[in-house]
């Protein structure tokens, strides 16, 4: 009985905050667009019942997604941006996590604090700050002009480069923390043993450190990849008109076009796309737990 209650709480949470909203979105995605408030015709009417619902059921909004190439281009472009920025986040985050794990034990809490410090200010303000840094008259260009490295200001803001910078900056802590926790548990004598058995520093890193931090790398990559795929704020503030991301398309469909049914269909497909990496992530976590037992 007690275990039932314990399990029931998270399930009730999931039901109320995930499944019910999802059902509502799914319902809207199956309905028709209308100029009214709210801007769609409900598909399910209690008076006509389930029968009428099934009679009138169509997937026109989903079919529309395949007919206009904007949508699948946006999905693909999001996927590409998510993959590339996850890679760069790993490239930037791994050395930081490694240095933190190698730092003297009394320094580690401070370093950890510095990594999570940005969360103390609003995410929006931090993205706006990047606009100030990256714009044509921004700090970066002023600095580069001052050093004489460039004679013309670089156009970074409102390009994909700015989007990558913003994403790597924002999601870096999500990469650092799991990698750090994997590296911190690494027994230093394993590296010494590898060297003792004939490894150079570099090959010991490659053959021992990397494989043993694999779970952290995978966890961090998913923690970055999944939210970046649906990211909306960074591309709309830092990206240009050619930056195509599904989060931005969804937002425009919903608020500019006020086409709730199509926006809902976009959201449903996005969710289905996200389910795959989430399931993979869960399996990784499970495998890690089994290995530790």
């Amino acid at each position, binding site marked *: 009985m007690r275990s039932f209650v314990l399990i029931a709480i998270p399930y009730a949470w999931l039901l109320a905050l995930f499944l019910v909203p999802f059902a509502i979105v799914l319902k809207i995605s199956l309905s028709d667009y209308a100029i009214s408030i709210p801007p769609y015709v409900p598909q399910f009417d209690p008076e006509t019942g389930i029968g009428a619902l099934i009679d009138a059921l169509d997937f026109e909004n989903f079919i529309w997604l395949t007919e206009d190439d904007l949508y699948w281009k946006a999905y693909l472009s999001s996927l590409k941006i998510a993959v590339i920025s996850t890679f760069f986040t790993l490239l930037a985050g791994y050395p930081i996590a490694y240095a933190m794990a190698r730092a003297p034990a009394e320094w580690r809490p401070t370093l950890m604090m510095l990594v999570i410090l940005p969360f103390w200010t609003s995410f929006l303000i931090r993205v706006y700050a990047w606009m100030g840094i990256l714009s044509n008259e921004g700090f970066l260009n002023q600095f580069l002009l001052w050093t004489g490295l460039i004679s013309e200001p670089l156009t970074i803001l409102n390009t994909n480069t700015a989007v990558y910078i913003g994403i790597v900056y924002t999601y870096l802590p999500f990469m650092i923390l799991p990698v750090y926790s994997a590296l911190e548990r690494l*027994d230093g*004598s394993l590296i010494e043993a590898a060297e*003792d*058995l004939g*490894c150079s520093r570099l090959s010991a890193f490659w053959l021992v450190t990397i494989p*043993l931090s*694999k779970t952290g790398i995978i966890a961090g990559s998913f923690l970055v990849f999944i939210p970046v795929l649906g990211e909306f704020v960074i591309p709309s503030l830092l990206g240009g008109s050619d930056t195509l991301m599904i989060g931005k398309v969804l937002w425009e469909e919903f608020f500019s076009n006020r086409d709730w049914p199509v926006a809902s269909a976009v959201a449903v497909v996005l969710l289905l796309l996200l389910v795959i990496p989430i399931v993979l992530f869960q399996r990784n976590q499970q495998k890690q737990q089994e290995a530790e037992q």
Partner: protein
Amino acid sequence: MTASEFEPWNDPEAKPLIHFQNVTKRYGEFTAIDDLTIGIYEKEFYALLGPSGCGKTTLMRMLAGFETPSEGTIRLAGQDIAPVPPNKRAVNMMFQSYALFPHLSVWENIAFGLKREKMPKHDINDRVDEMLRLTRLEKFARRKPHQISGGQRQRVALARSLAKHPKLLLLDEPLGALDKKLRQETQFELMDIQEKTGTTFVIVTHDQEEAMTVASRVAVMDHGKIIQVATPDRIYENPNSVYVADFIGDVNLIAGTAKPNGSDTYALSWHEGHAPLTVQSPNPLSDGQNCQLAIRPEKVSISTEKPEQADNAVQGRILDIAYLGNLSTYHVELPTGTMIKAQTANTRRIARRAYTWEDTVWLSWTATAGVLLAN
């Protein structure tokens, strides 16, 4: 076994495999190794014994290449090894934590060092199989380290460090994580493997029983210095200092002043009003020098009547009896307040023991039973 003949340290012609020459290691203000000179011979099983913090692990890590001496030179087969990094040394180490790679199987762990040498594949297979046979791990080759027991892990670590056929194998507290019974079995296994492979072993331990069991020579260390290097029996029977006598096994120490009395024989006056003790001791002492008689509890006999013809006999009262099953240790207080421990084998059942608490007994020992150590 030809242990009685294997004594290269007594052969002036023999060249040590490892030679520490005036080696000092400092960490800031702290001196871990203090001007140390020793030689370790080929095929020796050399034990570094001492309390924690005595520098024995530092000494071993210098051999492995993880530390470099602040002063002095370490030679391996005549070559100064200071500039050689750990991965280029013909020295392998078995770590205290075993340091097995958790992501690799037993087989891959053992093959790890061989693959780094770019050994041909079938040679690796042969060598790993040989090591698995030597350590009786054939059945566990495919398992991961977390799927085998502590004793098996210890053997994997040993197999892995032996696989490259090093000139020198370093063992850092190799049996520390095993329980007592397994530890004793494994000690004999280690000796067996050392003999079969003919590798020079240097073992670091704080367990004096372990050092005495496995080693051909034991080096007792304290505060970064070697106090005595000798065979286990000499360390036990002829310690060169009170520190060594006290560190190895149990010992009674009786303080007094020595008076030469014939060749190698001294009369030790230890308490006013008591007859001086007769001691035959190899360590030379001057007339009237303050010294301590060190005598092992098992060399002190206990009896109810004063024994005839004993070189030394004192009377006392039993204060405590430690019953160990096979042995009993009697703590006897002399009228002078000195406490002497006497150990006897329990050849009869405990109910038939001749003495008990508060009994007055005689303690006796021969002139050669103990040694005199200068203060």
